[in-house]
Structures are given as C-alpha cells and as structure tokens.
C-alpha cells in the first residue's frame, strides 16, 4: 500500500515532492553494540502519541518536542495528537500495538530475543518539515536514553 506505484497520483506526487525537498544529512553515524539478546530497547514513535493527561502537541517552536511514555503506561490509554489527517488511524483505534508495539517488545524480552525493555519510551509528532528541526530535541533525547542504559532505539513512524 505504501508502494508509490500503488498510490493515487496526487499522493504519489506529494511524497515525491517531500523526497526532493528532504535535506541530505552529512556523515553516516554508526554505533555498534552487544548481541541483540543483551540489548536494552526503547520505542521512539513519531505518531504524536502522548498520555491523556500530558500536554497536547502544539505548533511553532514547540512542535518538535517529545513526550515521555513510561513503560508502565497502558498503550490503550494513549491518545494520538498527530496533526496530519492523511494516514490511517482506524488500525490504531483497534489495536495500539499497531503503532506503539510495547506489548510485542515485552514479549520479545520475555522469550529472550532482546535483553530488556527500557523504562521510558518517547513520541514526537512527526509533521514538522524539514526534519532537521528535530536535531536539538533528538540530541537531548540521546542523553536521556543513555541514562536509561538503552543501546537500541527502534523508531516507528506513521
């Protein structure tokens, strides 16, 4: 479905326009680490998820902030504050693991596929363009993840 050839022309052109306008990032950073079975894994979503009692995502300079989702937050209680209306949300309404697979991650930790699950997970609201605007908050987040002993962050867009 997200094959460009399968999309309507107007949507294909929009996505290709974004591709053409996307910044080319300098450098190819690469961090190694232990075997997967020893890694501590965190989820980073760009779906604009947040706890119901947390601040909604705003616009302007605040649009690149992140929200903290503690590991003991029931996924079903999260709300989705992404500004875009142009992606499917009906799947998330049925099953939050479709977008924020914390239950799946816990299962993989339980069967030993990964070492452990982080105590804190995070969500951005992925609409701001160009995405280089996220740099300050992403660098800030790297420090928080390191303090949680995270050595594998998986990034889930919508």
């Amino acid at each position: 479905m997200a094959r460009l050839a399968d999309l309507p022309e107007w949507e294909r052109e929009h996505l290709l326009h974004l591709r053409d306008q996307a910044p080319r990032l300098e450098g190819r950073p690469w961090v190694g680490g232990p075997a997967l079975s020893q890694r501590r894994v965190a989820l980073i979503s760009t779906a604009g998820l947040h706890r119901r009692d947390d601040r909604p995502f705003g616009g302007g300079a605040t649009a690149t902030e992140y929200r903290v989702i503690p590991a003991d937050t029931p996924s079903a209680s999260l709300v989705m504050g992404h500004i875009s209306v142009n992606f499917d949300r009906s799947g998330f309404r049925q099953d939050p693991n479709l977008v924020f697979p914390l239950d799946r991650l816990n299962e993989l930790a339980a069967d030993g596929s990964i070492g452990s699950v982080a105590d804190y997970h995070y969500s951005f609201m992925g609409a701001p363009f160009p995405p280089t605007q996220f740099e300050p908050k992403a660098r800030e987040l790297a420090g928080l993840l390191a303090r949680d002993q995270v050595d594998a962050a998986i990034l889930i867009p919508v």
Partner: protein
Amino acid sequence: MSAVGHYLEEGGIATASISLVREHSEVMQPPRALWVPFMLGRPLGAPNDAAFQRQVLRALLALFEAEQGPVLRDFALDAPTADTAADDGHGDACPVNFARPRQTAVPGVALAAALADEIDELRPWHDLTVRRRGGSSVGLSGLTPEQAGAFLCGFAANQPPDNFRPEQALGQSLKQVCDDLRAYYEEAAAAQPGGLGPAQMQDWFYLQTVAGQVLVAARSLGLAHADKSVRAMAERVLIPRAILNRKPSPQA
C-alpha cells in the same frame, strides 16, 4: 524519522527505523531502516495480529546485527488484507445500522440534534470497543463526545463557541475536537460485526455520517475565518486529501 535516527546515532544511541516510504529512506539514509509495504498509519502491518507484528519487529531488530551501514532492507511480506472484516466473532449485537442513509443538508439546530442522536446511537458500540481494547484513544480535547459535537456544531453554525483551552489557539482546539469525534466514531465502528476496512472507514465517517457533514461545514466556514490558526487548520488538516480530491460520482 530518518533525521531523528541520524541525530540519535550521532548522540551514541544505535537506532533502527521502520520506513513506510522507501524513496524517503533512500535519500535520507538513516543508519538502519526496514522498508515495509504497509499503508501509512500501519507501521506494524495489521491490527490484532500479534504474530505478524512480532515478525515485523524481529525483522527490524535483526538490523542491529549488521556490522556496517547504512542498511536499508525490505520486509518481504505484505500485510494481511487491510480491508477484510474485523469481526472477531464475539457475537455481541447492537441494532445500529451504520450505513443507513443520512440527510445531506439540514439546518443548524436540526444538525446539532441529529449529531447528538448519532453520538448516542454509537455509544453501545464504543463501550464495546473500550472493553475489548482496554481503553479509548478519545481524549485530545478533554471534552466528551457530546461536548465535542456541540462545539463543532456551534462552530459550523457560525455561533463561535468559547475556546475550551484559552491558552491554545482556537485552530488547535478545533483540530482536537475533530480528531476526538473521528476517534469516537472509528472506535465505535471497529466493534461492528463485519467491521470496516481503512478506506471504507474513512468514507463512512466523512461522507455518510452527520459528524462528517458537520465537519465539512465547519471546514468551509474555517477557510474564511478571522482567526489565522483556524484558517490554517481548515486548509490542511481537517479533511483528508483522499476525501477532498474525490471526483464527483458519475451518477450525481
């Protein structure tokens, strides 16, 4: 997502991203990416399919075993059909016909009453989804669906409601109300036997419900609103492009 991965990796955290648009990952070149052939909004492929979701997650995590990058790998499987029925066989019954014809143009007061009725009709289905899902994703605005409906009707009838969050722009409040109503309706529809696929769900909400009619009316008014934040929301994020770009039916 690619940029966030890039900066996290520069900050010392190994990352692996799901890629929903391969062409974007090709130019951004995040350290590790798994392209999945799923629709936007469904990064793990299919709701209520834990085995398939685990498969996607394992493929994503396997990227951490690569010794050098950037790595852009393709996930080999398509998602189980997104438009198949979502009936889980629980057999609960509720006599609401979501597809019944709705009036296409009704005046303001009648529209508000029709919306209130519709919200009320959907309540048993919504309760069912909340029970199965373990919670609701309605809650951006902090208003009940009935309050959200009243806010939107007032807006659409050009009787400006008070901004329920004065600290935020009116446009943002309007957007939260619209998203909450859509969430309530989609959660209610998800409980129906037979279910609706994503495209059907979108068409149903925007084209067949009273809420969709009110939303279209609110957008029309918002496009010329005095408040810049409202105009911006109305222009870009109240109605999906798939609905706005819909060609008129030949029989119309």
